[in-house]
Structures are given as C-alpha cells and as structure tokens.
C-alpha cells in the first residue's frame, strides 16, 4: 500500500478516522458497561455505610477490611438501616434513595447559593441506634470521602474512609483498618463544641489509648491527606450540627 503519509490531507483524515473509531469504541464500551458499573457502585456505597456502623465481616485481629458480601448487602442494608433522612435547611424528609445523593453535586449547588440536601442514615443494631453521616473532602491529589457513625452521645462507633487517588502506601492507607479503627470510641465533642477529630502528628498516643483528646495518630508521610481528613470531619460536622444537637438533647 503506497500511501503518502506525509501529506497534510492524509494527516487530517487519519486523525479524524482515528478519533471517530476510538471515540465510538469507548462510547460503546461505556454505555454497555454503565449499568453494571453503577450497580457495583451502589452496592459499594451500601457496604461502606454498613461498614461504618460495624456491620461487616472483620475478624478480631487487626487485619484487612472485610465488607458484607455483595450478594447479601442489599438485604442487610434494608435490615439494619431503619431510616434514611434528607436534611434540607429546616426540612427533614424521609427518602429511601437518600444514600444515592451525590455529595459533590450538592456541594456545587450550595456554592451556587441553594440549600443543599444532607443525607443521614439511622441504623439500628442490637437495640442501639447509629447515626451515620456521609462526608466528602480533599486529599492531596484527589477527592477523599467517607462515612462516620455516631451514637446519641456523639461518640464515634465506626468510620469508613476511601479516596480517589492518594499516594499508594502513604495517604492511600486511610482506608486501612489500623487507621480507621483508631477513630472508634473518640468523641467528636469537646466540652459541648463540635470539634471533630484531628488526625494529629504529635499527639504521642500511637496505641490510641486516650479517647478523650479528639485526636487520632496520623499516618507517617501523609500530612496533607491527614489534614484533609481532619478538615473533612470538621466541615461535615458543622453542616450536620443543628440536627445532631437535636438528637443529643433528646436523649
């Protein structure tokens, strides 16, 4: 095939054809897989929410994170999550699809001046109530997010964190148990103030025995991701403060 590949017209045609082919292949792939992908993401969200309230398959040892299996998670979610609330300003409504609310979208709505919707999940396990708050913030490279479950006294019962692209081996370890388990038992209150929990470098408490200091031990080498977690918890608590206060006073 003797084509003059140096000609401008050939270059333009080649580029056009290539873009069309690659574009349609990717578009076809994305649309044919999107159903499966969003289903996977939905189940993952349910797994994460349940994980934060302690419904998971973790052993007693400090090992890896073990979610409820994807085949059971939908049923377990219905069983343990009693109510899904949407807080919008002073309005509180129930909504079974609240866990599908996109926090990123709500954040940009809030920036545009609208009142954002805040999802909150009320779970019940062994007669005890859990208030699970979703959160979203910024790490070093990309978004970080998570769920934190609180009891009526604002003591953390469990957390789950995840990230889009933190440094592997450093900031990426926020989704490991040795980091997340440290939050359990910490109070987000400091003398009645919603202080949150600091991911602290110098709290001199590596075994995390002090549960009243509003701080957990940071990960070595991931200052900015840790600060991101601190900021995410503080900002989210600020948003949910009015509602959380009604729970606390009620009890």
């Amino acid at each position, binding site marked *: *095939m003797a*084509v003059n*590949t*140096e000609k401008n017209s*050939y*270059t333009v045609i*080649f*580029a056009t054809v*290539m*873009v069309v082919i*690659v574009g349609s*292949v*990717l578009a076809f*792939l*994305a649309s044919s*897989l999107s159903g*499966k*992908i969003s289903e*996977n993401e939905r189940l*993952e969200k349910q797994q994460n929410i349940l994980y934060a309230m302690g419904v998971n398959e973790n052993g007693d040892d400090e090992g*890896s994170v073990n979610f409820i299996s994807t085949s059971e998670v939908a049923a377990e979610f219905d069983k343990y999550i009693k109510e899904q609330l949407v807080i919008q300003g002073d309005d509180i409504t129930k909504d079974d699809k609240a866990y599908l609310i996109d926090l990123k979208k709500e954040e940009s709505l809030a920036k545009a001046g609208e009142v954002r919707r805040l999802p909150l999940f009320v779970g019940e396990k062994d007669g005890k109530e859990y208030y699970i708050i979703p959160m979203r913030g910024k790490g070093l490279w990309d978004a970080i997010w998570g769920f934190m479950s609180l009891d009526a006294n604002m003591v953390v019962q469990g957390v789950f964190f995840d990230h*889009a*692209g*933190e*440094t*592997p*081996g*450093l900031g*990426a370890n926020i989704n490991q148990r040795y980091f997340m388990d440290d939050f359990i038992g910490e109070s987000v209150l400091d003398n009645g103030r919603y202080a949150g929990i600091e991911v602290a470098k110098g709290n001199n408490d*590596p*075994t995390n025995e002090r549960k009243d200091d509003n701080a957990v031990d940071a990960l*070595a*080498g991931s200052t900015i991701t840790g600060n991101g977690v601190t900021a995410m918890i503080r900002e989210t608590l600020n948003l949910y403060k009015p509602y959380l206060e009604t729970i606390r006073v009620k009890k």
Partner: protein
Amino acid sequence: MALLSKKDANLILDPLSDNNPITIQVLGICSALAITAELKASIVMSVSVLFVMGMGNVVISLMRNIIPSKIRIIVQLVVVATLVIIVDQVLKAFAYELSKTLSVFVGLIITNCIIMGRFEAFALANGTWRSFLDGIGNAAGYGIILVIIGFFRELLGSGTLLGYKVLGDPIAKTGLYAIGYENNGFMLLSPMALIVVGLIIWVQRSRNKDLIEEN
C-alpha cells in the same frame, strides 16, 4: 529459550539488566518514586504496565506504516489512553474490587515515559512479534526495579512485607523491636526511593564495568 531466536530473546533479556529502562536509560523514575512505598503497589503497577506495554507495542507496530509522522506522538498517546481506559472500565464492571486498587495507577500508566519511549524507539520501526517481546521485556525490566525498591522501602520503612509484620510488632515491641530496632520513617518518603535507585545503579555498574560511561 528454544522458542525464541537469540536476537528475539535479547529483546526480553536486555532490558532486565544491561539496558534497564530505569537504571540505565533513567526513564520512568517518576512512578518508581511515587508508588514504591509498599511492595504490593509496586507489583500491581508492574503487572499493569506489563499489560499496557505489551498490547500498546503490538497496536503501534500494526499501525506503523499508516501513522503520519507529524502526529505520531498524539497517536501513541491516544493508543495508551484508550487501552488503559478499556482495562479500567472492564475491571470496574467485572472485577470491582481489583479496579479500586488499580484506579490510582491509571493516570500514572498513561504518563509513563517508558511506554512512550518504547513506542517511539521500537514499535514504530519493528514487526509485531518483536515489538511485543520488546514491550514485555522493558515492562519486566521496569517491574523488577520497582519490586526491589518496594521491597526495601516497605521492609525498612514499615517493617512489613505485603502487609505482613515480618520484623515483629513495633507497638507491642516484639521480634526485632524488642532489642531496640526502629522503623526508618524516612524510607516511606520519595527521596529515599531515589537513593535506593542510586544504590541499585551503583551495584549494577560496579558489577558490569561496561555500563560506566567514559567522559
């Protein structure tokens, strides 16, 4: 290596030692520094690059006679990006757990200079089979160095290997820690990866004097 002629075998073996992309050509340093704090991440990255480089080299080699030279770099980028996105999407649909571990590396693979380097230097001028071997060889050469760095950084920095506490428990003070050993937190930071690469280069060149450049 009866399957391959000597020339073909060298395509795979050369990049493993005497023409290693990291230690000799000094390519792909950025990802070698970024993701080697853990052995597991190093292995995952190596396997991903192996796949993308093997496939990419084949695709570029098949297209080598019709790619206009003026836009060849763009074509190469499109090929890598497409391959990586296809892999990422398929994994997301059928192996969601695995895709979560890999997603961090997707961006790093696309920008990996070794991949672009091999497309440009080899696949554009050679046949499909040889290009495939060259891709595999270079990816393996890259992977070996990554695994070596990951091994030392995780062992000395966290005292673990693949998450297992091989040196004992630093908090409960068992194993080596009982006699006063401490993890070197500096190993977790990128500068130490560079120093480890430097040490590997030093060892390699002192064993094979031919690699030392004359000034």
